[in-house]
């Protein structure tokens, strides 16, 4: 999956993705509006919701328009849509603050903060979700391919004989009822064979002739279908952590970008420094924990990577929260407490996001390579087996050509030619007897073909 495919794919403007972003953005808006003098406490919540609806509608609408022309939206278009949404969000926030609280809307600041947050967070989030979904699809496809390779065993001499036997039984079982029926009709009408009964018998034989040809063409039975399944969440997440320091650095950077400017704007430079210290400390914990575990017990990291990541995240949130509350760099105020959950949410989302983007991208490349090998193996196996089935079908076709198809054709010709001629009752009876003998011979040979051991010489080969 290329970056363009990931960022311009379905998740670029997916409503579900946008709904998922509502809680963290609401938290950020609550922080941003914590000093805005709204007349009621719930106005920041209304502002957050309106902003999110405006931004979401812009992205969904932009995505729908862009997708009319492109299955994969070009990167400049995707970034333009996100930028317009950020602009609309900042503008909506300013308008609500101005109209409801009567303050300076600070359009430029609000729009700049949302633009920055969008540029840093949205590409990484969309890429991470796309990689995660791809991982689920790839793991599902691998499971299907492994299952197919396992069930599609190579045809050996034994299975070849089995295939031949199955083909013979399938054909014999399908033709036998029609032959018995014909035999009964001929026996019943042989003494009173008129033009109408000749035409009817001829038609039934023609159908049997066509049916035999169709059976021999398609006697290999069930067509293989490839089910589409997706792996479960737990299975998709079961990848050992890789590049923990890169992931930690990106988490730290993203969190700082998301919160720093608002903290600076609202609480001043000391609070911003405190936030920087807390976030960097959290990043250090995020990088250190898997590194130390990997050095001390590498197998633990491989087997329980997710748990170790979770432990690292909990520790990093605890460390950052502790530093925000107790570092002494800037005394915390009541509304400054909002920064702590926002920091925790940001660290959590960023960790999951970069884990998915970095670790899963690598794992997906490996999974894709494995899937390609499996699919190539399966295609080769199926081609070989199809060739064997086709050859066995041809063998059966050759075997049935004279005793079955040839005799049916002879019967049809006899009945057709008879229906065009003025024949006596004796001639008609003679013809019916000859056709009946043929139908009996077909039934007998068909039984012999079905009952014979496919490995032995063909019983009625001519």
């Amino acid at each position: 999956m290329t970056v363009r495919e990931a960022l311009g794919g379905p998740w670029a403007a997916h409503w579900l993705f946008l709904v998922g972003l509502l809680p963290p953005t609401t938290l950020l808006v609550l922080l941003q509006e914590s000093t805005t003098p709204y007349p009621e406490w719930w106005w920041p919540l209304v502002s957050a919701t309106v902003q999110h609806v405006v931004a979401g509608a812009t992205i969904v609408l932009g995505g729908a328009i862009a997708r009319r022309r492109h299955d994969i939206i070009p990167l400049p278009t995707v970034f333009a849509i996100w930028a317009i949404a950020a602009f609309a969000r900042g503008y909506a926030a300013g308008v609500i603050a101005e109209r409801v609280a009567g303050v300076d809307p600070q359009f430029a600041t609000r729009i700049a903060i949302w633009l920055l947050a969008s540029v840093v967070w949205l590409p990484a989030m969309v890429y991470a979700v796309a990689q995660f979904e791809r991982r689920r699809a790839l793991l599902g496809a691998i499971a299907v391919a492994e299952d197919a390779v396992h069930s599609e065993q190579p045809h050996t001499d034994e299975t070849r004989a089995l295939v031949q036997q199955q083909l013979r039984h399938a054909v014999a079982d399908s033709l036998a009822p029609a032959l018995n029926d014909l035999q009964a009709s001929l026996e019943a009408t042989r003494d009173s064979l008129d033009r109408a009964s000749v035409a009817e018998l001829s038609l039934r034989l023609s159908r049997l002739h066509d049916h035999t040809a169709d059976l021999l063409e398609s006697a290999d039975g069930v067509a293989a279908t490839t089910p589409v399944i997706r792996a479960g969440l737990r299975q998709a997440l079961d990848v050992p952590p890789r590049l923990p320091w890169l992931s930690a650095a990106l988490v730290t950077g993203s969190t700082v970008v998301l919160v720093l400017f608002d903290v600076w704007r609202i609480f001043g430079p000391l609070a911003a420094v405190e936030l920087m210290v807390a976030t960097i400390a959290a990043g250090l914990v995020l990088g250190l924990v898997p590194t130390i575990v990997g050095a001390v017990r590498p197998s633990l990291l491989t087997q329980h990577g997710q748990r170790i990541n979770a432990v690292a995240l909990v520790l990093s949130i605890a460390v950052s929260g502790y530093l925000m509350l107790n570092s002494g760099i800037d005394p915390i105020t009541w509304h400054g407490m909002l920064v702590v959950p926002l920091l925790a949410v940001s660290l959590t989302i960023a960790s999951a996001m970069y884990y998915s983007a970095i670790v899963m991208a690598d794992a997906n490349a490996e999974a894709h390579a494995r899937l390609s090998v499996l699919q190539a193996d399966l295609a080769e196996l199926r081609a070989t087996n199809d060739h064997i089935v086709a050859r066995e079908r041809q063998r059966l076709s050759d075997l049935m050509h004279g005793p079955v198809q040839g005799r049916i054709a002879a019967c049809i010709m006899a009945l057709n030619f008879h229906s065009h001629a003025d024949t006596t009752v004796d001639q008609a009876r003679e013809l019916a007897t000859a056709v009946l003998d043929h139908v009996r011979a077909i039934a007998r040979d068909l039984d012999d073909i079905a009952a014979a051991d496919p490995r032995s010489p063909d019983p009625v080969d001519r």
Partner: protein
Amino acid sequence: MSAPETVRTTVLVADDDALVRGVLRMALTRLGFEVHEAADATQTVEVARECYPALVVLDVNMPGGSIHDTLDALRDINPEIAVLVLSGEAGPPSDITGPLCAFARKPIELDDLVALVHRLLSPQAQRQAGPS
């Protein structure tokens, strides 16, 4: 059905199925031809040598030899011999070409058989085949 000439045209029906031979004999006799029969490839060549047929209605899969060997032997006997090849297969074997050769899939309709026989024995077909 046209009235036969003073000397009737000879047709050889070669098929290992007696029922097919019987119905072809019946149909061709009604058309005014003198009909001979053969049940295998060897017999086909022997009968052709004896009766010198203008047309052979020949089954592709007969015991005693391949279609190509039989055709070669028939053309050695009479280079201008017309051949109507009948087969249960959808297509003709290779080398079944030329104005004096035709292919039909079994089961053949009576009208188609009559049309093919007349075409193969028409003076035009004989002219296209050219002098030997």
